[in-house]
């Protein structure tokens, strides 16, 4: 997957100035004045219950090589070799509603956060951890991230870490961190730093080397007006975080933020290509590029330009728009779109994307 994105990055770097609807991977054309920048274009194939998805409400999606996992409102589906296999509570899944997924890349185990606990799917066996049978802080698990032997978990009552070697659970909440609210919506862990998206309590940073906590808050407080743009986190209600290449991408219900350790940059609909400030999920590709899953469509930001993929908010017809650095918006002719505007998750399979929406799972196949 990484090689593909690297290639993608290289093409983008050389092709940013190219024009029209040339697909990613195509030879760069000479720039034409006034033309829209080249942004990736996809043909979307959508999965619903009609073709095997366990439920149309898809909270999360995870790609593991040729396998695609979908966390839905009624079970965990895995798509492989053209077929869906479904896991549900009778198989040991903690709860039917699977809110979040994470892959342990070393072992191939999949961790599923649900409305009733945390489950590990390993070689077809499901082990479940709940607030009653383990040290898990709460059964409502919004986020999970695997780093080394640690599984970091975001729950409705704080965050926690399971050390897979010792079995020890460590809980992080208002008693031992700067967390004021304990409704933790997301977590992104690396060997050096762990970031928590806390609903109403901003963004928390845990330094694994020093054991020190830091907190990033909206300089405007809980005010939904943005008085000081690019001065800090855009809002206290953080819904998702993605830490990649030493860059923090943070989503809120009131806009999104990028933080490089020194400078903040905020993204709002009024001055970016973001289709909505209400962002459910964010996933950085690298320091410059990220995907935004909003209530009004899926957005891609390449560091300069934006592309939005969705069924039209008015007609429902497939729609792709591209916004350049100057704010010029161009409509790109497409025949397919993600299954729904309400987008909840995304993951990457080579140059393709998989998108979790409120009404189905979408496979975006890059068009060249």
């Amino acid at each position, binding site marked *: 997957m990484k090689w593909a994105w690297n290639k993608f990055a290289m093409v983008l770097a050389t092709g940013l100035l190219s024009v029209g609807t040339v697909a990613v991977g195509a030879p760069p054309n000479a720039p034409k004045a006034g033309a829209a920048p080249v942004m990736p274009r996809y043909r979307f194939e959508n999965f619903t219950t009609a073709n095997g998805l366990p439920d149309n409400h898809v909270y999360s999606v995870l790609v593991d090589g040729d396998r695609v996992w979908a966390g839905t409102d009624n079970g965990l589906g895995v798509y492989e070799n053209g077929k869906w296999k479904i896991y549900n509570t009778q198989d*040991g899944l903690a709860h039917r509603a699977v809110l979040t997924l994470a892959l342990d890349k*070393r*072992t*191939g*185990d999949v961790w599923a956060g649900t409305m009733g606990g945390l489950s*590990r799917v*390993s*070689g*077809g*066996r499901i*082990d*479940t951890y*709940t*607030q*009653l*049978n*383990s*040290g898990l*802080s*709460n059964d409502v698990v919004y986020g999970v991230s695997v780093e080394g*032997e640690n599984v970091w978990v975001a729950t409705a*009552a704080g965050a926690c870490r399971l050390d*897979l*070697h*010792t*079995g*020890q*659970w*460590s*809980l992080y*909440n208002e*008693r*031992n961190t700067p967390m004021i609210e304990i409704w933790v919506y997301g977590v992104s862990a690396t060997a050096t730093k762990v970031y928590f998206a806390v609903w109403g309590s901003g963004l928390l940073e845990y330094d694994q080397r020093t054991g020190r906590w830091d907190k990033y808050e909206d300089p405007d407080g809980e005010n939904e007006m943005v008085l000081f743009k690019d001065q800090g986190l855009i809002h206290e209600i953080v819904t998702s975080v993605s830490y990649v290449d030493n860059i923090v991408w943070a989503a809120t219900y009131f806009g999104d933020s990028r933080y490089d350790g020194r400078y903040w940059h905020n993204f709002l609909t009024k001055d970016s290509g973001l289709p909505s400030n209400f962002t459910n999920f964010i996933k950085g590709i690298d320091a410059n590029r990220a995907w935004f899953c909003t209530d009004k469509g899926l957005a891609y930001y390449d560091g300069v330009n934006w592309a939005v993929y969705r069924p039209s908010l008015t007609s429902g017809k497939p729609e792709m728009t591209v916004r350049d650095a100057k704010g010029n918006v161009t409509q790109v002719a497409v025949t397919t779109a993600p299954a729904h505007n309400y987008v909840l998750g995304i993951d990457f399979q080579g140059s393709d994307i998989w998108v979790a929406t409120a009404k189905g799972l979408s496979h975006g196949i890059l068009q060249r």
Partner: protein
Amino acid sequence: MKRRGHNRLRTAVVASLCGLGAALCGIGLWTGGRARADVNGRTGEILTYASPVEVLFSPDGTRLYVLCQGSAEVRVLDAASYAAIKSIAVGREPRGFSLSPDGTRLFVANSWDDTVSVIDTGSLEVAATWPVGAEPSSVVEDRESKYLFVANRISNDVAVLNAQTGAEEKRLAAGRGASYITPAPDGSRLYVTHVYPNFKARRTGMENRTPPEAEITVIDTAQAVVTDRIPLHSIAHGFHVAFSADGRLGVAAQLHPKNLVPLAHLEHSGAFADTLTLFGADVGKPVEIPLDELERYAVRPFGVAITADKSRIYVSCAGSEMVTVIDVQRLLRFIHTHQGPYAQDLSASANYVVARIAVGHDPRGIVLSRDGKLLVANRLEDTLSVIDTRSNVLSKTVPLAGPKQLSVLRHGEQTFYTARYSFQGQIGCANCHIDSTFDGLTWDLEPDGFGRDIVDNRLLEDIKDTEPYKWNGGNPNLPTECGPRTEKYFWRAENYDDLTLTDLVVYVRSIPLRPNRWRLPGYELTPAQDRGKALFTRTVDKFGNPIPERNRCSYCHSGPKGTSQKSFDVGTKKATDNSGLLDTPQLINVALTAPYLHDGSAATLEEIWTVFNPEDKHGRTNDLTKDELNDLIEYLRTR
């Protein structure tokens, strides 16, 4: 030859013997530091036996490697003459070993040291010692010498090490009690078996009375990931696996407990089925087949070997002290022409078992030579049995160097592991106390009434001075527990003579304590353990109210072993229980012994308090936050 811990054992023996009373003390007591032999010639002295558990041939067939658990060494013998070439010291309690595919390195899993010894087979020296997970029990290198896979019994995983440096790269989730790894003939897959049944998540609340589930974990050696798990329904304890040379037939040795019915019908084969699971292309879906026959039980099948021509399967049966021989063609014909299940059918094995060959005490690992010999490691006899596979006759018994005199402890251990004392030789103590530990199961014992007083099986380590025994505290001492009670309710046969019972009790009282893996070196506590200890010993709750003595953890679970040796009602009585008054269990290595509570109804330590302590009768805990409860559990794990 002496080793560390002998002083402690010696003390244990002395104390044990003194505690049994004159009626049972037919053997000599310690006098002035010297032991004298009893009337049967057994000595009270602590002797270090070799205790061979596994055996291997070198790739060229000229050397024999014998893994000696008791003396903590690998003995190298000439494969033709069985003459000793060298003994190589390894770590404590080595449990498994294997050769690298090229035969240049011998890897040994040292289960008490949590290490792997790497022996250079050229120099016959230990070239390296690598740390691994908790209680490593077997070790296998892949064909490319890229990874070393180590099954860790306590951490329930398989560690993946860099085969050249020993650096651990990751751990794969295995089943509970991961212990034995066998590569497929083409090396592409590893098959891991487990000595304990898998954990069960609480769903209906009746998980303690549902059949055990175990698995064979299948690992892709190239990717070093778990690709499959072969479910073993109703199986609690798995041991070795063997494959036919063509890879089409896999055979796993295992124990199938019948713990959901009252243990009252040994005469009707009521305790265990000793079985094999067959899997692979030859059989299609996995099939469980029995080894037992009426009056000829194959107790605790352990080692498995299949002849190169796939004509015979050999299975060492530890409790029966024999090797069972199976005709493969007849076996396959049987399973393809008979509809199962037949795991408990005592008439089935007559269709394919063609011989039963008596060997030594507690036969464990077995290996076939190129020239048609089967070698058997008799752990509690310090011998190797050599069987001619053409005639299926014991052709020779090779003694290993070591003490020739039988000690009290050794005889007690033999008594613990043999099935010869039970009705028709069906079970032994070690059936429920796997490797002298526990079994992770609950049982319905007869004395309390059928369907009454379901009880969890408790750990035997370091149980000296934890009497009374039984969950209801009904047995005042071990001679009662191991003697008349066992005779009447378990063996249903004439029991031990007094001297044998004494030896058994000495052994049981001397079962040593495994190292606790949650304790830091020097017995320091982590911050979480330290906070947990404060909760364990507190006398005032978080609201400043005094906690009555009987509601303090440290009152009932007092003393170095975590038991006041008194009975209390902690509010866990079930409708099927005759009384709520229960003996306080010791806390020794409590982290290992799930499920918990007297009837195993708590699947985890957490559930003791999150589910089964609504009225604070099992300690004042409902004032604790979740993180405080986690701290308490972190402390308990150090006990």
